[in-house]
């Protein structure tokens, strides 16, 4: 703990940042103060100062406002300032409303409840064991009562009904908190561990069941509170005095840890994870300096300290298995690096094939990362950079502030994996088939680029690709992937509306609605779902609400095939005019001329951020490019609920 004078100085610098309306300075003063002090009073001090600056965070730093409603059966009030601060640290402005103590059933079931009417972006469901599975402590008393199973099933089924009913009334993102395993029980820790129906075992199963339930409901994430409780220490997690006197679920010492963890589980619902990890080689991927120590001299392998680096390589390999792309960015001679990978292959967990890109040379690393972003068609905010050299780290922080930078601890290589693993930037609530195929897909992209160079004529090149597009209703396609695309696509995204899964379902199932997911494959591979379009026909007008395409496949005519698909369906639904909308953002300039390029004429629009375009469907049909084979679009019934009007 620092001296009281330091504390006063840190408080003063926060006050100064607040009074000059400087969001970044206020945030860094808050970080500085709270990293020094765990005292509740300091968190309250910061929260109350920053509260008045909410709008400033949105305007200056682009933070996202989250109107949030907590459905709860416990006392969360003292934790609110901690949640507000942790949300700010993660880039969110939390506007939190707490529901009543006993009203969670009504809030979730009643279509006119305060919760449903609040129209919140996010709902937190924080219930205690009494509400989730109240019979369990008694049923688990012997550790061998078979009825425990039935009780677990019925508890999960009951919560499932609450969640599904709520989902039918609201498209808010949901975080459902699980249960923390108690530190002590009447059965005692030996029997707890050895018997099949002890309370700790039962609670673990309740948690697994709730997690599976959340996975079956759109935009819903299970919050594993037991994990944070265990990492803080189960024996100190709950303060019985405050729990029994006031139903405060967590000891005051851990309000911050609890809030940080909760925010971590919220974040993947609103923000896609980062996609690329760029790693340095010398003293990061392996120990020592290749240029000086030679391939045989670098440290990697099963013996210490090489095993520290091996552990890091294995961790990267695991990231890669679920779709995080690896790139090597190093100042070295490429031939020596290749030699090291081949000579030391038995001691390395990674091969050169595990990397989507190798950027070895003597130029600036920032330049390499910029190039890589371009080649992979990813934004710099998808990148993480790991390097042991403080100068390199600082250079990236300065030149590419969007990139997350991890400094590898050169003198303590055993710490690197832990440092990386504790950061939330690769967090995701699910892993899709496309994620698992991603590394292969990006390699195929490189092969396509190579093929393209061999053709002079673009149409011939595209024809040689043998592109097949499959149109599916977003209801039959993997919905999670569709929503992932909606959340993360920035460049070719005409309106950048981050529709939730429930909203996509609504488009797909309402009359005149269209919700298309487009899969594409070519001779090099299957890219999976690459585009989403949402539209709705009312009367003789079809309005395109959302239209987006993964930047990996832009420029192959798939966008035109999608437009043709919407137009065809719109005509079948009785539309005579197709209206396209373009909302300019910082990132979507590449698609600004999409509608004019397809024969749309611009409409007068008064004072809104949107530009509207119109196409007369009776005069100018949109046709799919000849080089694309289209599948699935004839199955009209794929778009559930659409009705033939002609």
């Amino acid at each position: 703990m620092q001296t009281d004078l330091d504390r006063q100085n840190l408080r003063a610098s926060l006050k100064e940042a607040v009074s000059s309306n400087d969001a970044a300075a206020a945030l860094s003063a808050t970080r500085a103060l709270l990293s020094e002090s765990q005292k509740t009073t300091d968190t309250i001090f910061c929260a109350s100062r920053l509260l008045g600056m909410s709008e400033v965070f949105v305007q200056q730093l682009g933070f996202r406002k989250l109107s949030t409603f907590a459905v709860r059966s416990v006392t969360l009030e003292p934790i609110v300032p901690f949640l507000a601060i942790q949300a700010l640290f993660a880039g969110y402005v939390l506007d939190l409303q707490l529901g009543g103590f006993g009203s969670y059933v009504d809030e979730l079931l009643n279509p006119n409840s305060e919760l449903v009417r609040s129209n919140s972006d996010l709902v937190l469901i924080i219930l205690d064991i009494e509400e989730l599975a109240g019979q369990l402590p008694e049923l688990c008393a012997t550790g061998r009562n078979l009825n425990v199973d039935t009780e677990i099933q019925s508890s999960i089924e009951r919560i499932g009904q609450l969640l599904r009913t709520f989902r039918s009334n609201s498209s808010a993102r949901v975080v459902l908190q699980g249960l923390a395993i108690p530190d002590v029980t009447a059965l005692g820790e030996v029997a707890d561990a050895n018997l099949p129906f002890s309370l700790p075992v039962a609670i673990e199963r309740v948690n697994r069941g709730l997690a599976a339930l959340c996975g079956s409901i759109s935009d819903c994430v299970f919050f594993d509170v037991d994990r944070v409780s265990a990492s803080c220490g189960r024996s100190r997690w709950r303060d019985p005095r405050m729990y029994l006197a006031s139903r405060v679920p967590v000891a005051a010492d851990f309000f911050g840890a609890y809030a940080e963890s909760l925010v971590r589980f919220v974040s993947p619902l609103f923000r896609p994870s980062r996609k690329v990890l760029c790693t340095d080689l010398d003293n990061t991927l392996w120990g020592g300096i290749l240029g000086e120590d030679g391939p045989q001299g670098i440290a990697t392998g099963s013996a210490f300290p090489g095993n520290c680096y091996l552990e890091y390589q294995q961790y990267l390999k695991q990231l890669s298995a679920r779709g995080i792309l690896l790139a090597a960015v190093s100042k070295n001679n490429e031939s020596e690096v290749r030699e090291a990978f081949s000579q030391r292959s038995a001691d390395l967990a990674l091969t050169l094939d595990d990397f989507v890109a190798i950027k070895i040379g003597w130029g600036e690393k920032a330049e390499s990362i910029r190039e890589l972003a371009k080649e992979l068609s990813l934004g710099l905010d998808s990148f993480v950079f790991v390097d042991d050299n403080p100068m390199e780290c600082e250079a990236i922080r300065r030149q590419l502030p969007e990139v997350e930078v991890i400094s590898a601890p050169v003198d303590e290589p055993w710490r690197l994996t832990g440092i990386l693993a504790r950061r939330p930037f690769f967090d995701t609530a699910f892993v899709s088939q496309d994620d698992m195929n991603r590394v292969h897909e990006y390699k195929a992209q490189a092969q396509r680029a190579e093929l393209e160079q061999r053709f002079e004529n673009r149409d011939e090149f595209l024809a040689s690709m043998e592109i097949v597009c499959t149109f599916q209703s977003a209801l039959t396609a993997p919905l999670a992937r569709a929503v992932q695309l909606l959340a993360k696509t920035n460049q070719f995204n005409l309106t950048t509306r981050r529709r939730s899964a429930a909203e996509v379902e609504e488009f797909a199932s309402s009359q005149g609605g269209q919700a298309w997911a487009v899969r594409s494959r070519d001779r090099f591979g299957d890219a999976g779902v690459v585009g989403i379009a949402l539209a709705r026909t009312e009367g003789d007008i079809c309005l395109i609400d959302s239209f987006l395409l993964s930047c990996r496949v832009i420029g192959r005519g798939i966008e035109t095939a999608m437009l043709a698909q919407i137009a065809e369906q719109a005509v079948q639904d009785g539309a005579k005019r197709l209206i396209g909308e373009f909302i300019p953002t910082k990132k979507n300039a590449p698609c600004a001329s999409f509608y004019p390029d397809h024969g749309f004429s611009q409409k007068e629009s008064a004072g809104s951020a949107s530009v509207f375009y119109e196409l007369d469907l009776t005069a100018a049909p949109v046709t799919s490019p000849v080089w694309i084979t289209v599948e699935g679009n004839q199955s009209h019934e794929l778009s559930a609920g659409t009705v033939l009007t002609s």
Partner: protein
Amino acid sequence: MSSQQVPSSLRELLADIFEVAPEEITPDASAETLENWDSFRHLQAILALEGEYGIQFDPQRIPELTKVSLLQAELEKKGVAL
């Protein structure tokens, strides 16, 4: 009574929690006189004071400590040097 009688550290802490100016934290200020001093802010104040001064209040006494002078007396009774 003047606010001078409340030690400044306690005054500022309570002012932050109840979101009022420090001058409003007089010995007589209470749940009756301060609009923000509801049962939850009370709990927040109790937890904050416990964390700040490293003491624990008796849960039976907590609901009664709804006046600045009472909080101050309780802290002094627990040996806190304000």
